């Protein structure tokens, strides 16, 4: 009995590591194009991985569904971009990436997380 419980616990830990870290990087919702709708709801940006190209204008249309104050801001780190979102009022953020790299975008307290990959 005690062996089974311990094994279950260890398996559960392994599962947490696999599910939230290892598997995550392979499965992120992925999007490219010039105009992308991003739904902000229940703790996640959907899609959360955005592909863009240097010099090519892109429009991210954030649609906030979550009324909790966590969701009200989108802040890009490494690029001078941010937006204040209103519930159910889509906000269009248009810009032209000028440098290659990976830029995280998060809510104010970094619980919502997404990544912009500029190639």
């Amino acid at each position: 009995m005690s062996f089974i419980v311990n094994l279950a616990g260890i398996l559960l830990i392994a599962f947490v590591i696999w599910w939230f870290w290892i598997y995550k990087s392979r499965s992120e919702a992925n999007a490219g194009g010039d105009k992308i709708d991003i739904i902000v709801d229940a703790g996640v940006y959907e899609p959360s991985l955005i592909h863009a190209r240097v010099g090519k204008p892109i429009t991210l249309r954030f649609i906030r569904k979550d009324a909790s104050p966590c969701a009200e801001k989108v802040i890009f780190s490494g690029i001078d971009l941010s937006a204040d979102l209103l519930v159910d009022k889509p906000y269009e953020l248009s810009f032209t990436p000028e440098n290659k790299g990976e830029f995280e975008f998060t809510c104010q307290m970094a619980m919502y997380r997404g990544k912009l990959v500029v190639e």
Partner: protein
Amino acid sequence: MVTENKKETAASKLPGTVRLDVPDMTCAGCVAKVEKSLRSVPGVKGADVNFADLSASVECDVSPDLLIKAVSEAGYTASLASPGGDSSEKDNAELIHYRQLLRLTVVSGAISILIFVASVFGLLPPVETGAGRVSWAIVSALALFVLIYAGGRFFTGALKSFKHHSANMDTLIATGTGVAWVYSTFVVLFPTSFSEIARHMYFDTATLIIAFINLGAALEMRARGKTSQAIKRLIGLQPKTARVLRGGEEISIPIEELLIDDIVRVRPGEKVPVDGELTEGSSYVDESMLTGEPVPVQKNVGDEVTGGTINKSGSFLFKTTRIGKDTALSQIIDMVRKAQNTKPAIGRLADRVSGVFVPVVLIIAILTSLVWFNFGPEPVITYMLVTTMSVLIIACPCALGLATPISVMVGVGKAAEYGVLIRRGDALQQAGRLSAIVIDKTGTITEGKPILSAIEPAVGWNEEKLLAVVSGVESNSEHPLAQAIVEAAKGKAITPEACESFEAVSGHGVKAVSGGRNILLGNKRFMELNNVPIGESGLRADELSRQAQTVIFASVDGKAAGILGVSDPVKPDSKEAIQRLRSSGIKVIMLTGDNSATAEAVASQVGVDEYIAEVLPQDKANEVAKLQGRGEIVGMVGDGVNDAPALARADVGFAIGTGTDVAIESADITLMRGSLHGVSDAINISKATVSNIKQNLLGAFGYNSLAIPIAAGILFPLTGMLLNPIIAGAAMALSSVTVVTNANRLRWFKP
């Protein structure tokens, strides 16, 4: 780095459309009533009421006052939609959310207390009996109701982020309370499969935690509202209507309808609606709300007036030059809002930690439960459950994530109140660490506008005659020194003598022919080159330049006619401001293109530590770099005109604005008030904000790293103490409120 253009999706504005906010419509029936009342106003062509955002757009050519009156006669209140309409919408949405949180708190709190009292005082029969099982089943259902009604969003959120391989606060709360409910319900269903002492139920724990978290969220929301007060105050500065002259009549229109080149009347006590140039009348205008400068500024014809400032005394007319999004006030609002969203480097660690926080806590929770399973006392399952729940509930990534941005919000807003506009979060952090400040003299220490400060005619000349000739020549020149002389002649009502020819000699002066006479104006060397005997005036000239005056020699037909001294007066508070910087341990270095005599004169007058004279504009950045090479953290203060490279090179670039130039791109910080005190203000606000962030980070990190082990039961082997999961819930709820409240303390800071 990026070019940005943003659009908020908003209703298109027709010419002659008035937008009203009608906040107290509660049903579709109200919509019809409000529309009817608006359409009954003569001159209204159409009225559309939008129930979703509680607004009405009215196509008409009547004054909004009449519309508001009509709506109020129908029993509703209406007001002109503000141009920052999104802010009132935001307030509205926040209020609705806040009220909902309170409602959830009350409902879940009331039910929790019922369950709590029933369990603690043993009011219900034991679960092993038939009657007991029925009554506990009812309790279980009640608790489930609370979990779904007041805590449903945690479960849906947790599930949704789980599907996306991400975990957040919701995950922790849902797992913690979910485990409590599932275990307790098992006890109700199969009491005999648990040993007698393990037959404890945790319905009250689950529901109380939900109640506490809702209460915490509501409190946090309230406190957060205060953090954005500075920006709300700025938005509130914008008047809603303007009194414009159209077709020879003065009419009041919403400011969204103002056009460029409109002539607008501002009466005493009224706010200037947009930016423009005064065309008639004069007055004193209070600009303190934008610049922090308490003394009202005199405005005459030709002066700039800024939207949002208050006309104190006379009535005047002005021509609009910037409207809508282009006004200084709109740009300030935009800039502050953007800066409030940036994160200084100090917050990056917390971001990285909060990114992996939740899965780590999940792992700690599992480990906790294994340790208690293997090494804990009987009943093992009870200890496992209590500690695991406590760990899940007490961990609070929110406090960690909020620590930096919430202080930045308040700090940047506070700075704006003092006329200090911060562009980047990093500048906010760096400003407090500066060890040396380089100040470009012109326009910062001095007014930047030279005036004629000495005039000494030679024998055979008098002041009037000399000034008439010299100003006649100089009126052909654009040079600031020339302008000072022309202005002085104007001030003394001396008519300049027209001149027939004019030639500038680079680096030396000008040659001109006036009334048939050959005139030379320029420096000593210019006179020597042209063999003009300067005699004793050379000594006098040296004396003047020791007083920081630039000396101009005048000669007529090869004979000395006199000397003129022009100087750029030192601002009255420069000395005090520089001493303030020095007394806080910062080295102050003055940089100037002037010759060393002038530079030394100004330097000793204001008391800087060092000065560097005869610096060419392109070399300013090098001087900054040299200081950085000596290990100094350098701030550069300039007027943003020809010192952009130096401002960019410095660790923090300060541009001293002249009231309306808010968007000085090259500067990290713009000082709206034309005073050097702004630098100290910025530094002090920066220090206060950074220490506030540190307190928050320390608090949040400290809280989590102390609370989690205690929740896991680390004190149990020593003291036999275990944390009640209910207390864990309360602590978690309070932790983020505390962070926000601490950030709010910054609002009372005085630099």
